[in-house]
């Protein structure tokens, strides 16, 4: 008997964390007590207190508000990147797996080459060359990000296309797009959710790493990475600038790792 997914601790914990952060991000304009762009130089480097829950930064801006708005940027960038990568990987992986032969070989060689590059380094150099902006950040993380999805999808499609129900659909005269769309893709949902979940975790870390290095979103935007970059320079005098945004990154990334692990355990026949 399969245990229901709602009884899986990792899945429930992951989903709760992600939902919580998502709500915080969506309602950031309502929930945040101050504007993240407010500059109040008389309130610089305040420690956490009743008014500024997470303290203030070098411009006197409220860190709690910045963290809320930072969640928006992190989640938005990660969703865009993973969405694009998932879609591109799904299409290219299906083509490779379904058609096989030289198409498959060609696609796999391209994937091998892109994966030979450490992904973060490629993104880093692309942003460095193109210039820091959110658009370039998303673009840079999509260059090789789709390959993991494509590899996964190809493997699954190779296996699925020999299944009786797919063969039956082909025998009944269904055209290739119909077979792939209605008979193959629905069976990829599980593995794709797992992969997307881990990809979200990785993308959030990569995005904030780039912002931390000053290569992500413009410094005027309140991002977790740029807060940490600011905090690093005043680590001794104002550690709170580094602590809270970092905890948010850890929490959100942990949420996606939990979710991915939970769904993977659920889908793994050996565990039941």
């Amino acid at each position, binding site marked *: 008997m399969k245990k229901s997914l709602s009884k899986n601790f990792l899945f429930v914990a992951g989903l709760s964390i992600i939902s919580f952060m998502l709500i915080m991000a969506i309602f950031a304009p309502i929930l945040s007590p101050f504007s993240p762009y407010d500059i109040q130089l008389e309130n610089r480097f305040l420690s956490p207190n009743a008014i500024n829950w997470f303290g203030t930064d070098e411009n006197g801006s409220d860190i709690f508000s910045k963290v809320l708005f930072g969640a928006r940027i992190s989640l938005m960038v990660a969703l865009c990147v993973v969405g694009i990568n998932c879609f591109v990987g799904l299409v290219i992986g299906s083509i490779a797996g379904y058609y096989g032969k030289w198409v498959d070989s060609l696609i796999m060689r391209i994937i091998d080459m892109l994966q030979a590059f*450490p992904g973060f*380094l490629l993104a*880093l*150099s692309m942003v460095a*060359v193109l*210039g820091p902006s959110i658009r370039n950040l998303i673009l840079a993380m999509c260059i090789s990000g789709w390959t993991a999805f494509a590899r996964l999808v190809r493997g699954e499609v190779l296996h699925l296309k020999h299944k009786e129900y797919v063969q039956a659909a082909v025998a009944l005269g269904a055209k290739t797009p119909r077979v792939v769309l209605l008979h193959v893709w629905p069976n990829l949902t599980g593995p794709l959710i797992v992969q997307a979940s881990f990809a979200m975790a990785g993308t959030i870390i990569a995005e904030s790493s780039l912002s*931390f290095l000053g290569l992500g979103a413009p410094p005027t935007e309140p991002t977790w990475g740029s807060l940490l970059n600011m905090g*690093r320079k005043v*680590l001794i005098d104002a550690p709170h600038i580094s602590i809270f945004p970092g905890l948010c*990154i850890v929490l959100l990334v942990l949420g996606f790792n939990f979710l991915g692990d939970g769904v993977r355990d659920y889908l793994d026949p050996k565990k039941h």
Partner: protein
Amino acid sequence: MFSFILRRILISIPVALGVSTLCFMLIHFVPGDPVDIILGESANVIEKSALRSELGLDQPMLTQYGNFISGLLQGDLGRSIQSRRPVFEEIAERIPATLELTLGAMCLAVLIGIPLGIFAALKQYSGTDNVVMVFGLLGMSMPGFWLGPMLILIFSIQLDWFPVSERGGLEHLVLPAFSLAIALSAIIMRMTRTSMLEVIKEDYIRTAKSKGLAGGKIYFKHALRNALMPIITIIGLQFGALLTGTVITETIFDWPGIGTLFFSAIQERNYPLVQACILTVSLTYVAVNLLVDIAYAAVNPQVRLK
């Protein structure tokens, strides 16, 4: 075995060529004129054309590419724009520091990951196992650029156990290596656990148990040896992630390695140096993957017979 190595090396050549081509293309992705960006729009025409011809940008694309590849084969990728020294010379100076950091991190990750993984596997589904697994996920979720400053805050500033930054004796290595190692140790731990769990269900372990062998001997001599294969593979494959991670870790700890060189090259728009750094790291990555595959085949005949 020889034919396997040869085949594997032959496969690596196009990959290495592709990686080099991507690096070559980088400077051409620069929006606008790279020379304008390096020198500023106001620089005079003579300076600009001198730099343009030094970078080879005044030649046709194919000639540039040919020069780039032949330069690469001869170990000459031009000079750094700021220091005027050959880029590979600057990189070579930084290699020992980066190597020290990566190897230190690798050792730490292995020392933390493997024992914890074995421990979790032997106590599968127990409270301890769950705690270790959650810590593993936590380790994987902790970005180095946050962990680094936190370690400095706790161990250098509060407790004053380790120095804050720069390279020196072993005590300088501890914090940067640890902050670089934590994610890898979590990955190794999970791999060890999975692999051990598979092995301890094997018949020969049951035989060893029924012979009355002591637990330690069974788990370390019979089980761990057979479980090591996937662990070694993952360690090799994660070497690239470690190398990439050094960019952040070195920046935080002022570590004088390739990472800081790369980062300052980016900030100074020192494109020849940027290209050379990426190329060095990526080609090392390709070479390490090649070595891991060969080592894997050497110990596991199933791989090379496929």
